[in-house]
Structure formats: C-alpha cells, structure tokens
C-alpha cells in the first residue's frame, strides 16, 4: 500500500493550520488498474496541479458554437 500511503499523505497533510479537505472524488479511466497504480497516477496529477505545472484556468475553452436544436432536427 505504498502508493495509497503516499497519496494519503499528500491529500491529508499534517500541520495545515486549520485547512482541511472537505471532499475528494474521482472519474475512473479507460483501463482497469490496481489500487496502487491508480494512486500513483492520481498522486502525480495532484502534484502537477499543486506545484503549478498543470494548465489551470477558471473557465473551460469550448471548441464548439451553440446552435438551436431545431437546426439539428430540420437537417433530417
């Protein structure tokens, strides 16, 4: 359980002066994995984000333009 322990220490650090985790959730991936593999990959993701190496933003860059659904149906 080495990776689980490492992830736990990262997400629930000691001595955080009142800061605390309220909730954690995950979206599983495309391939079946072991708990250790999952923890290792998730740990790497949290480290990326917390060290400022992730692409962080307040909004999502959409690649589509919204259209009225009638256009979708009228093209039948």
């Amino acid at each position, binding site marked *: 359980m080495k990776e689980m322990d490492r992830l736990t220490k990262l997400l629930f650090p000691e001595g955080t002066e009142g800061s605390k985790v309220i909730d954690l959730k995950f979206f599983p991936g495309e*391939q079946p994995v072991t708990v250790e593999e999952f923890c290792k990959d998730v740990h790497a993701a949290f480290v990326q984000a917390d060290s400022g190496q992730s692409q962080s933003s307040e909004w999502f860059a959409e690649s589509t333009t919204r259209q009225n659904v009638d256009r979708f149906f009228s093209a039948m």
Partner: protein
Amino acid sequence: MSYRALVDSFSAEVDLPVHVNQVLAWVRENTDHKSILLHGVSRESTSFRGAFRRRSVPAGGMYSHDHEIYTDVFYGEDLADDWKRLVIVKEVIHVFDGPEACVDTPEKLANLIPSIIARQLSGSPFLPALNDHFGPFRAMAVLLPAALRDRMKEAVDSGSRTISEVATFCQLPEVYVDIWINYAPEIEPLLFEAP
C-alpha cells in the same frame, strides 16, 4: 441552491451544447463555491479521467472562524473535448454532495478508491462511492436536459438520427449519450435520491 435547482435552470435550454462555462457560472453565482479552478493534467496512464477536491481554508485573522472554500477540478489534458466536458461537469457537481457522501478522511479515501476502480458496486454500500457512480449521469442531466433528450430519442427511434450524430451535436461521449437516451426513465429518479 441544490442540484435539482441546477438541473431545473437548464431544463428549458434550446441551444446545444450546454457549455461547461454556463454550469461553472451558475455554480459560482448560486452556491458558496466561488473559487473553482480547472486543472488540465498530463496522465501517466489512463487509470483516471478526472478528480475533484474541495478544501476549507481559514480566512481572516488568527481568531477568525471564517473559512473560504477552494474547489479544484482535474481532467486529463489528453482527453477528447467531449470527455473533458463530461468529466469537468461531473466533478464540479460534487459541490452539492452532502456530508455523508463526502470523502474527508484517509479511511474514507481508502474505502472509495477500490470501490470506484472496480466499475461496479459490490460489498457493503459506501455512500461516497455510490455517489461517484451516479456522477456522470448527474452531469448528463444538465448537459442534455430531459426535454431535449426526449426529442433526441424520438429522432433516434424513428431512424432519422443516430446516437453518434446526437453525441456529436451535444459534444458528449457516445457511450453516455446512448445510455442516457435509452435508459433515462430508470436512471433519472435515482439522481435526485442518491446521496
């Protein structure tokens, strides 16, 4: 405001896709979750698509009891846009999770992870895992509102449109569009009852 209020607010939508930013704006405007940051992360493998972390951080001076809530949403930067959209909305909707559905201790984390990577519910019920399994469908209820979903189903059933075409128009993963269009009557009531 509740998850149901979020779903209701998009129920009269006539333009698609519902954009992720519309959902983010609604959550920021109608809940205590003002600080929401999206993190596109590189994945070492495809073991996970996304994650959610909500933290309470002391605000103000030493003797203040005020706290600010910081919400982080993680998604694989290599995911296709339709998956990114579903993952982000699924994760951000967890701001509505009640205390019993939250994972806030190492013990709960150790309980959650085996439950969600198994892709099926087994053993004694663990409410946070049950909640996580419902998450993508809670997002689908917002991203493809019921009225439009029903119109899409009519078109699919008549053969004039395919699930693939609907998924492309809605910018959502085909596998979830297929389930949502064909099994929503069974799934939908559970979304508002589950923790």
